[in-house]
């Protein structure tokens, strides 16, 4: 399991993150989760997500969050 998936599963172990594509639209993830997610991604993956990237489209699915992290990693 990828570290990102691990982080997400720790927050909500009852959600199938690999198939869910409306995490924001359906309120699966709330503002507290976003804070946790950003802190954990920073801690465990070493990627800082800047405020400009905090838009719904980047967080609606595992694939989108993963793509965001990869893109930020490449930019570094």
């Amino acid at each position, binding site marked *: 399991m990828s570290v990102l998936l691990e982080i997400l599963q720790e927050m909500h172990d009852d959600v199938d993150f690999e198939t869910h594509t409306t995490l924001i639209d359906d309120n699966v993830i709330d*503002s507290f989760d976003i804070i946790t997610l950003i802190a954990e991604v920073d801690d465990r993956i070493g990627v800082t997500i800047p405020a400009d990237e905090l838009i*719904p489209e980047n967080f609606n699915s595992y694939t989108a969050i993963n793509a965001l992290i990869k893109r930020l990693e490449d930019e570094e």
Partner: protein
Amino acid sequence: MPDRNKVAFYGTGGEKLTFNELYGYARSCGSYLLAKGIKKQPVAVFMQKSPAMIAAFFGCVYAGCYYIPLDAEMPAFRIRLILEAVNPALIICDEATVGLVSEWGFSCPVANANDTFACSVDEAALSAVRDGAIDTDPLYVVFTSGSTGIPKGVVATHRSVIDYIENLSVVLGVTEDTVFGNQSPLYLDACLKEVYTTIKFGSCAYLIPQSLFMFPVKLIEYINENKINTICWVASALSLVAGLGALKSAVPKTLHTIAFGSEVFPVRHFNIWRELLPDTRFIHLYGPTEATGMSCFCEITRTYTEDESIPIGRPFQNTEIILLDDNDSLAKDGEPGEICIRGTCLSPGYFGDVEKTSKAFVQNPLSAFPDLIYRTGDLGRRGPDGELYYISRRDHQIKHMGHRIELAEIEYVANTCPDIGLACAVFDNASSKIVLYYVTGRQGDGSSVLSGNNKNSQHSKSKTEEPSPCLKAYLKANLPRYMLPQVVIELDEMPQTPGGKIDRVSLLGKYMDEKEKKNNERFT
């Protein structure tokens, strides 16, 4: 006088409600209730956060009733507890909630808000209500977390709200030109700040979509686009904007007044705000629901260092704060004392609970005449600068994401989960996480313990398995979102104090130790 066609409330989905419409809807709704014979009774308003929900509140008021605000986001379990406690004469719903009520099988009569707004106005009936109104009549009942697991209904009267709004608006400097950006849910008394000031001054309020608080740059753009100039938010909302770095890329240009409260605002985040907006007024508000809205304020005119705390200041006009020590005497200057509140702002007490009311609303030990004070359970002290400072709670109540939570309520719900023997919730202040420890089955009978595993003499050993998904799902279904524990950990045994109580201190210590250990592992 503001234009009657000015928009009073802007909804989260772009809907608008003018003062004229609000007046019309509220009077129609009031007439509808009176036609049904509902007068001076509790009416539940169970709707999505919207200007229409506010119109329904005032509809109840026109009928001389008091409203119980419920939110479409609340879990069914909690709504059931509240409805059972108040037994409302009617539930006013909208399209989104009307189905839920019948699905859940509540037996109360239900009305669709739009039907009540379409009712013809009965002038005679409305004015008869107005003639018979007294200011100690209840206006609403809002429910807060209760330590026995059942939410507590705090009653507010017309005059406690009038007193609050009059004094709050002086502090905030509310005028007709005020444009509020509301963050608080409408089921909390925190929304009084925008709702009743708007009515009194002809200002206006935007109900900010909740989702924007996840995306703070968008939130700031929303503020600027709508020229919002005054916000009264829970500190965690402001903290989130600063903490996520949003203020580096976007500046809220239109804000001239920022009030914050309901919890401690980390100095680091406050300073980011203040340095960015040096010309903006910052006002710290403090107060419990039992004293209607807020009770104290402090205008913050400087930045603070990390080892300082931001004062809660002094009481509003017509409110007195007394600090009582353990002997019920006035605490000496600088010494801690329980914050007790006196004044018209006091709630008459808890709905349907004389016992709890008489414990919290007590005779002022400093007065020789009948004189009630509310004991907040908060410890405070008066600083050398003469300002009041909050120290801590006396009990297991916490503030999390701006919500007041009794840890016991979380435990109560967890304990009703079929597989759970005993649960205990602790709060890690540093990372602001609610941690729930539990044992399965009956405590100590070992039935759920890993078989073949030598029982360690050291108690409360963690298991390595993931917590039962069924418990997490159960909590999700039965607790409001903000009460959900972030960490759920199964134990073999619940640690106990020599007196036989759950040893909370050791549990919290254990969590801290494990967190540190985990951090160390991560970095080595």
